[in-house]
């Protein structure tokens, strides 16, 4: 009993949380129905867990009021030949005081107290409902409201009306999930002979079974003659003393509501796969111009490296050539901010399409409304994404110190230059000194060749060779530099993607998975 209630409270909580998550993303009618059930169940449990409300419902003229009087041992319900008769709901409670709060909540104003308590009726509130099939449509409104809030229902029918569509299609079938807190009283049993009555009850049994109400019992009564009243009272008092009708009814309502919600939610298991994120980062990087920027950085490295390590006599031209990095920055960063959407139409389109592809691949087979929500989440910070990507495109990587090996090459190159100059000077010095009347420098021969010639030729050969070696090293190094720059810039793009896109999408996916998890918890 207590366990049942705790369980119900837990499921109601789960369903309530699920509703909050599903708000705006699930069909409004379903959601309103679920909210209604939650509200009703919460109210009912809060008002009185002790009382059991049993209602008599049925069409006009089946002797509902007569049965009500017979069951309650009162004559509060008027009995008449005028149709329709009962026009509002009427309640009887037993004991010393009326459960006023409960009756207020049920919206029943016609209430009676009986001080003499029959066996097992102490916690019973017996309600007589108006008919639902008469020309008076307000009656129907009252019935429709009360069948939702009472704990147990006794449907009163007679041989004439037991197969009406208004009963079966209007109430029994829709209420099939509450089959075990419902009962059918087959009244006016005296109007038929035993064989016919038997056949009618069997027919009714078939109709109930077909509608999914196998758990609903049928008892035959003849209220006018008091037949079958005692067994019915017995069943009622057992229901009341078990005190489970309310919890059962509410639990079933919650199950049905949760089940309907689950159908709306679907059973997708969205995953934020690494591949989709990688594609997103690549797309965003492309839209930010990262590949061009990285190429520019690599080209810049190549130009500077060749200027430094190349043979000084020829390498100067690299320094003069247009700086690709500066050109790139000029093309991208000097744009008036906010003048155009993103920096170019193409980049804007690339950005949009990578966001779209990302949300599509992540949303997978989610219900359409959730897909749309994921798309919106991916776009939620697109302004910030654009700004930050533009910053990445415009900002320079920290200026790079020329690598140490460049300096080695440079020193070597200058030594080679010095050797060449020395060689030339030495060669020239002989005739010059001679012409000026000085003694020429002593001739030095290395391996049979004049030393100045060694210096001159060696300087040229070594310088050109070093330039070639430097070039052979610098080209792959520049390629590495391009790759490194791309990686570094991609990391920055990834940070933007994670913070501004993936996080928001992840939140939406979590919201969905949580809703699915909670609704399942509410069903069980």
């Amino acid at each position, binding site marked *: 009993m207590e366990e049942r209630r705790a369980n119900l409270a837990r499921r109601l909580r789960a369903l309530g949380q699920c509703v909050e998550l599903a708000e705006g993303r699930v069909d409004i009618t379903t959601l309103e129905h679920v909210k209604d059930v939650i509200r009703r169940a919460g109210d009912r449990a809060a008002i009185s867990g002790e009382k059991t409300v049993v209602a008599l419902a049925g069409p006009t003229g089946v002797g509902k009021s007569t049965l009500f009087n017979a069951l309650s041992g009162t004559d509060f319900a008027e009995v008449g030949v005028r*149709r329709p008769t009962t026009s509002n709901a009427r309640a009887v409670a037993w004991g010393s005081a009326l459960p006023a709060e409960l009756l207020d909540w049920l919206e029943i104003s016609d209430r009676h107290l009986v001080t003499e308590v029959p066996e097992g009726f102490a916690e019973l509130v017996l309600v007589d409902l108006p008919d639902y099939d008469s020309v008076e449509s307000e009656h129907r409104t009252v019935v429709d409201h009360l069948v939702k809030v009472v704990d147990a229902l006794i449907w009163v029918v007679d041989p*004439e009306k*037991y197969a009406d*569509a208004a009963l079966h299609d209007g109430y029994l079938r829709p209420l099939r999930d509450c089959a075990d807190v419902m009962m059918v009283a087959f009244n006016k049993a005296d109007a038929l002979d035993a064989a016919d009555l038997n056949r009618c009850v069997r027919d009714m049994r078939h109709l109930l079974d077909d509608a999914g109400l196998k758990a609903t019992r049928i008892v035959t009564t003849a209220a006018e003659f008091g037949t079958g009243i005692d067994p019915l009272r017995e069943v009622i008092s057992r229901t009341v003393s078990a005190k489970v009708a309310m919890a059962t009814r509410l639990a079933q309502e919650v199950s049905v509501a949760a089940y309907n919600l689950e159908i709306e939610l679907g059973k997708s298991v969205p995953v934020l796969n690494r591949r989709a994120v990688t594609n997103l980062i690549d797309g965003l990087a492309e839209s930010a111009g990262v590949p061009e920027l990285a190429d520019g950085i690599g080209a810049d490295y190549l130009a500077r490296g060749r200027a430094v390590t190349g043979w000084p006599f020829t390498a100067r031209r690299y320094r003069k050539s247009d700086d690709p990095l500066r050109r790139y920055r000029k093309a991208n960063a000097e744009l008036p901010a906010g003048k155009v959407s993103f*920096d170019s139409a*193409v*980049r804007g*389109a690339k950005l949009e399409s990578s966001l779209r592809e990302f949300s*599509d691949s992540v949303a997978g087979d989610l219900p359409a409304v959730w897909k749309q929500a994921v798309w919106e989440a991916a776009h939620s910070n697109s302004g910030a994404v654009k700004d930050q990507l533009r910053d990445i495109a415009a900002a320079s990587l920290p200026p790079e110190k020329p690598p140490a090996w460049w300096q080695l090459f440079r020193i070597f190159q200058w030594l080679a230059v010095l050797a060449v100059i020395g060689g030339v000077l030495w060669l020239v010095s002989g005739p010059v000194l001679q012409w000026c009347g000085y003694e020429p420098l002593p001739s030095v021969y290395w391996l049979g060749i004049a030393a100045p010639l060694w210096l001159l030729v060696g300087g040229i050969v070594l310088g050109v060779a070093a330039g070639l070696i430097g070039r052979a090293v610098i080209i792959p190094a520049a390629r590495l530099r391009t790759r490194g720059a791309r990686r570094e810039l991609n990391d920055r793009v990834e940070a933007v993607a994670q913070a501004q896109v993936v996080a928001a999408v992840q939140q939406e996916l979590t919201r969905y998975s949580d809703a699915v998890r909670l609704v399942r918890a509410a069903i069980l």
Partner: protein
Amino acid sequence: MDAALERVRDALKGVRLPLDLPSAAPAAEYAARQVVQLDDYILPRLAEQNAPLVAVVGGSTGAGKSTLVNSLIGRAVSPSSALRPTTRVPLLVHNPADASWFDSQRILPNLARTRDESPAPGTLRLVAEVSQPEGLAILDAPDVDSVVEENRSLAGELLAAADLWIFLTTAARYADAVPWDHLKQAAERNVLVALVLDRVPPRSMDEVRGYLTELMARQGLGGSRLFCIPEVFELADGLLPAEAIAELREWLAGLAGDAAERNRVMMQTLTGAVDSLARHLPEVVTALRDQHQKVTDLRMSADRAYREALSRINQQTADGTMLRGEVLDKWQDFVGTGEFFRAVEQRIGSIRDRIAAFFRGAPKQADEVSLAIESGLDILVREEAEAAAQRVYELWSADPAGKQLITAAKWNIGRGSPGLAASATELVRAWREDVLKLVSEQGYSKRSKARYLALGVNGVGVALMILVFSQTGGLLGAEVGIAGGTAVLAQRVLEAVFGEDAVRKLAKEAKLGLDKRIQELLAAESARYGQLLGTLGVTLSAARWLETALDEVRLARAEDDRLGG
């Protein structure tokens, strides 16, 4: 009259209300019911006014219809039982002399005739009885409030086909809502109704009778007859005692015997049915118009989304924003190479250049610019088309009917077509060919031939594309420096080759070609929505057709002297 009603029938038969609008469900149901009523009753009755009257016995489950029919005939023809619902196959009792009227499919053409004692479902059982007066047949219908759906709809159909109603209810039931819904319809259609109140406890006979008379008057059935049958506990052979139904039997016999009265009853009901039809048909017309309006609205919102996409692409391909980023980068590479400037300079044209161009082919950089332009254009077009689809989804999902279409559609409303990527690529490729064709067909002077060759056809083509993308010239601030400067360079080289006027013409033609291709692609994308709406089969002509037929009926009704004023 008959022809006009035939046309109404055909128009109603063709009523399609696929969108779930508030007016749709009631109108569709009404149209379906009226087709049946026209076939079952109105058209045959108009054609043959000498046919016997058909009195349909209808009412609630367990009201004792079969017992009443049996008692009227005087023998147990219709099986009655305590089980509900009992009557499933309708039973028509007629005088043997009237047999030919009912054996044919003249009335109720959807029900096969049988004279078998245990008939199959979906048939009409015919019984010839000498005790039944000539000129009046009695039709025992299923329950109007049966738990079995087919019984209910068949009951409705039979009541709609009756010349007069014998409507049965009981003391326990006379205030039930369902039978009264039927009775209100009878009042609306001016059908002659004989209300029979069965199983009245003798002690409360007067009270119930008085109350029911009051109820009938309130519901517009004041002119109808009321017969009360007291509660009988012991039936003799399943029949009510003769005196209990004497009054009803006498009234029916009187009706059958008086040809003039019979004709009056028949005409009253027929006129009522036609008038009711004329009164309610405008609701169907409205429902048809609502459907058409909604389809038009949805189509227009889809069109608008694509029109906006088109104008955005048109703008972006003209204002120079296309030239930023990669395109600019490659263009500058291209311009940075000597070939370009040599072409710009006035002096060149040597044989050496021609030979060089011949061996080198088109400068490689020109291809790279071209590639950058193409991939940029490709993605721009594709993305705008996707965004338009997304926009259509948003617009449609804000509308219940649109939502219904989104759910029912076999494809994703919010995304471009599966072939979109391919057609965007194809568009770009085709446009590039257009441009190359334009420049290669454009005449140039001998003097500029060398320049042309120096750039290669691709180089000239690229310059033209660049010019196209910056045509509006409305560039601002730094943009002029970059995109504008770029374009000026392109323009100068083209002018050097073709001359000023020709360049203007070329740029215009190339831009027009591009716009046309983009427009075609978007039109193909947006046509998907038109097709989806087209499959609904909603047309304005359905409403017009029905309206015309209705006007004809009204006109014929005024002129037809068979029908009472």
